[in-house]
């Protein structure tokens, strides 16, 4: 017998991916559409409509959307500033190095850093109060809130955008700007007709990545707020630990919902991308 040697190099990869990535996910997907007896049902998905779960999804979507959009535009602005702004070369390389670090500085330690900054006794809170007479907590700010969490997530979202988008901006050839100027284009026209169409696909792709990044994140939020901010990953975490919803299949449905949303974001991305590529031709 001849072994199918054609496959032997990729076999470990595929076996691993199927066993530990695809099957576990499929298992939950199917579980979301089954009842305890193993029969097909839409009941679990329908049960997601209860107010507490809808609220959790809604706040998760809001935090992810806000942090990914703020992160994306701030990251883009910083990237343009360091690549095209005429700043000294060391600023560019220092920013890129720092972005590599900060984009991976997430999870529990990031929450600690923001508590030390904007918590009730945090340095920024105290300084604003003592020197500027601005008590942000009296004005309704709270680190354990929507804006607190968003502001914290932005700390890893901006650098991630910078790291990914800088090569795309580097890809803009100087000649294109000169060509546009020769043809009499204004700065605004150059941006609208050259820069944005070229950067657009990678920008949008990164926004989707940032969104998924924030949507699935749990450690930062959990360390920051405990379970006081009811976002989906924390709800799912509580469900896995202690079946707080008293229905195992509802847990599957929540997991299904999370993948559905990040998956949907990616479908949008692919759709936009094919559209923009068609337009570029």
């Amino acid at each position: 017998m001849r072994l199918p040697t054609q496959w032997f190099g990729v076999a470990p990869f595929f076996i691993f991916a199927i066993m530990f990535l695809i099957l576990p996910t499929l298992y939950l997907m199917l579980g979301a559409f089954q009842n305890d007896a193993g029969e097909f049902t839409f009941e679990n998905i329908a049960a997601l409509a209860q107010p507490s779960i809808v609220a959790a999804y809604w706040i998760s979507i809001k935090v992810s959307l806000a942090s990914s959009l703020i992160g994306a535009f701030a990251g883009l602005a910083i990237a343009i500033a360091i690549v095209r702004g005429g700043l000294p070369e060391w600023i560019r390389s220092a920013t890129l190095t720092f972005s590599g670090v900060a984009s991976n500085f997430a999870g529990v330690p990031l929450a600690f850093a923001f508590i030390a900054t904007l918590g009730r006794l945090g340095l920024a809170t105290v300084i604003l109060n003592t020197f500027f007479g601005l008590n942000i907590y009296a004005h309704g700010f709270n680190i354990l809130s929507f804006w607190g969490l968003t502001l914290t997530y932005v700390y890893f979202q901006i650098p991630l955008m910078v790291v990914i988008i800088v090569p795309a901006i580097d890809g803009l050839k100087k000649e294109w700007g000169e060509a546009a100027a020769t043809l009499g284009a204004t700065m605004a026209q150059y941006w609208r007709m050259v820069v944005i169409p070229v950067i657009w696909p990678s920008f949008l792709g990164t926004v989707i990545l940032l969104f998924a990044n924030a949507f699935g994140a749990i450690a930062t939020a959990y360390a920051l707020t405990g379970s006081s901010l009811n976002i989906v990953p924390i709800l799912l975490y509580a469900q896995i630990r202690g079946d707080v919803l008293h229905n195992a299949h509802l847990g599957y449905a929540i997991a299904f919902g999370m993948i559905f949303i990040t998956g949907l974001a990616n479908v949008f991305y692919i759709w936009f991308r094919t559209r923009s590529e068609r337009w570029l031709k």
Partner: protein
Amino acid sequence: MKSGKFWAWVVFALGAAYFFIPLIATVEFSMRMRRGAYSFDAYKVVLGDPRFQATFGYSVLAAVFTIILGVLIVVPAAYWIRLRLPQLRPLVEFITLLPLVIPAIVIVFGYIRMYGSNSPLPFLASDTGTNALLVIGYATLSLPYMYRAVDTGLRTIDVRTLTEAAQILGAGWSTIITRVILPNVLIAVLSGAFLTFAIVIGEFTMASLLNRPAFGPYLQNIGANRAYEPAALAIIAFAITWGCMSLIQILSRFAPRSANRPN
């Protein structure tokens, strides 16, 4: 153009403020433990805590195993795709991107349900099995980074010629991979390894849900119960991340730059 430069400075300054204020605040907070004076007491307490040493050691070990597992899976696959099965590249790239779309908490939830004590593959029935499952979970998390790093490394060498030369000299597959391909992509593999290390060392979700005594859950526990130690831990974690990224940068200087013939 003058005003462009001005705005570039403004953007840069705002960004720098946003990124440095939390770091300064955390350093300041971590030194407030002793009343009335700045001190490194919080660091002393943290570093002297036996649980810190135990959980940190556990996570370092988990990271090392994750890197080994990742290399064993990714290097042969990336190599084989360049050599024999380029038509599989889109599929493999798609799979390696999945962990960025499927949240870690969902993956580990799947493990808990699929590999429980009553399942055909009862990973969770023993401590060793659960440790293995944690390493496996970490390897899936690092898959996107590891694959990209190795694939980039392979792009700079002429895989086909090297392989044929080795075969002519009578080398078997294991020799080719361990003594020809791996040394050539070592730098790329190490970059992937350090990135994996940075991701794994403080990971919370998987370790916590699998009940492993890892660094991430320890951090969370300290955060919930102490005041100044968390700030010290945040600075330590930042330093570790910084160290990993610096090593990657230093390594990249040794990486071969010219792409030979594109495969």
